[in-house]
């Protein structure tokens, strides 16, 4: 069937979201598979948000923040990076492939890079197929 990956993206207000906005105002064409959630800082992202996205059926989750050293709140992106690394070790243990969860730095001027990133992630997910997190939780699996 026609598989269209769903990507939930958490973008920080100051760099990544502005970068995504630039991609739009520059009229760049990129994959429409992304659902953007704007947050004030990548340091605000709790592992719960990401796990919930997978539980609700996201095929991939993308987290974007300011480049290291550029955080509007000094060090939110470092906090994000540390949590992310730990979370990714956990999600891999849980059988979620590494490429389904990505953290990238996007500055306010990197509209083009953002569009490329979304295209690239969509392509990767297309080759991987749908995430099995949601179906693993469905009741039919109870009695396999």
């Amino acid at each position, binding site marked *: 069937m026609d598989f269209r990956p769903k990507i939930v993206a958490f973008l920080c207000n100051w760099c990544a979201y502005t970068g995504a906005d630039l991609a739009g105002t520059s009229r760049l064409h990129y994959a429409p598979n992304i659902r953007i959630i704007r947050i004030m800082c990548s340091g605000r992202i*709790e*592992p*719960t948000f990401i*796990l*919930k996205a*997978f*539980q609700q059926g996201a095929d991939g989750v993308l987290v974007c923040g300011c480049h*290291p050293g550029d955080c509007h709140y000094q060090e939110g992106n*470092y*906090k994000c*990076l*540390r*949590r*992310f*690394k*730990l*979370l990714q*070790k*956990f999600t891999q*243990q*849980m*059988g*979620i492939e590494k490429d389904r969860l990505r953290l990238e730095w996007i500055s306010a001027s990197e509209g083009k890079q953002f569009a490329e990133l979304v295209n690239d992630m969509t392509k990767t997910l297309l080759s991987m197929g749908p*995430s*099995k*997190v949601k179906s*693993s*939780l469905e009741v039919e*699996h*109870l*009695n*396999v």
Partner: protein
Amino acid sequence: MSAEQTNPKPKLKLAVYWGSACGGCCVSVLDTHEKLLDIVAAADPVFWPIALDIKYKDVEAMPDQSIDLTLFNGAVRNSENKHIAELLRKKTKILVAYGSCAYMGGIPGLANFSGKSEVFERAYVETESTKNPERIFPVTEYPVKEGTLKLPEFFNDVLPLNKVVDVDYYIPGCPPQSERLIEVFTAIVSGAQLPPPGSVVGANDKTNCDECKRTKSENKTIDRFYRPWEIQDDKETCFLEQGVICMGPATRGGCGVRCVEGNSPCRGCYGPPPGASDPGAKMMSAIGTMINADKPEEIDEIIETIVDPAGLFYRFSLPGSILGRKVQ
């Protein structure tokens, strides 16, 4: 003084049942010691497999809603657990998920890191003490000349009680502290206003750190994590500040911080505090930022020292967590 002498009300009917459990929760009821006499003075146990010989058919014969309080401990692992959970739900006014297993899956819930076929393979073929070249596995029905032998069906997943039936209250703990049980039981017997259904009772609204007596500083940074046996605990400083993972920040208080008082880090059996649905995610959030490094490679190096994050952070809560099980 027994409740019966002061209270002319009819005695409550009490049921205690174990699903997929170790028996520790039932023992925690017995661990109320002499207070158990007060419990049986106020309530007649009508069904309690560890203590009374009452058959399932006796429970089936009871009128609906005739049991006042059921403490259901243990997770739901097979069709028998599920059947009794549904039966007791029908017969009971207040159904309590008692203990970590009924609340979030508990230790048996760690089986959700694999599935039924892997569990059977390990248990009936691979275990060092097993010799099973014909690969004989349990079946749910087996005909013999006297009739058909039946066994409950083993589910692929371990489930917390609330994924099978509606649960009125949760009493967390592995096992719940007996004093907490007495408090809850006394409240029910006295007819006190009960919290809204779905509440966690017999536990606090704050985390274990709030009650913990160890000295804590603002400077929480970790250069590497240690397993408890790898360091000499100074018996005074916060475990996390010593680099030992303690589930305190992501665990509801109410146990009296017993593990830490005994110089062992909290393992998280009381489940997440209010407002957090997933204790492991909360824990990763809390300690992730404590990692004292900024470069990805250095962060990786420190995270390497956490050997098994999934097993550690979800020791008592995997089936009740957001992901619930390993992807299959």
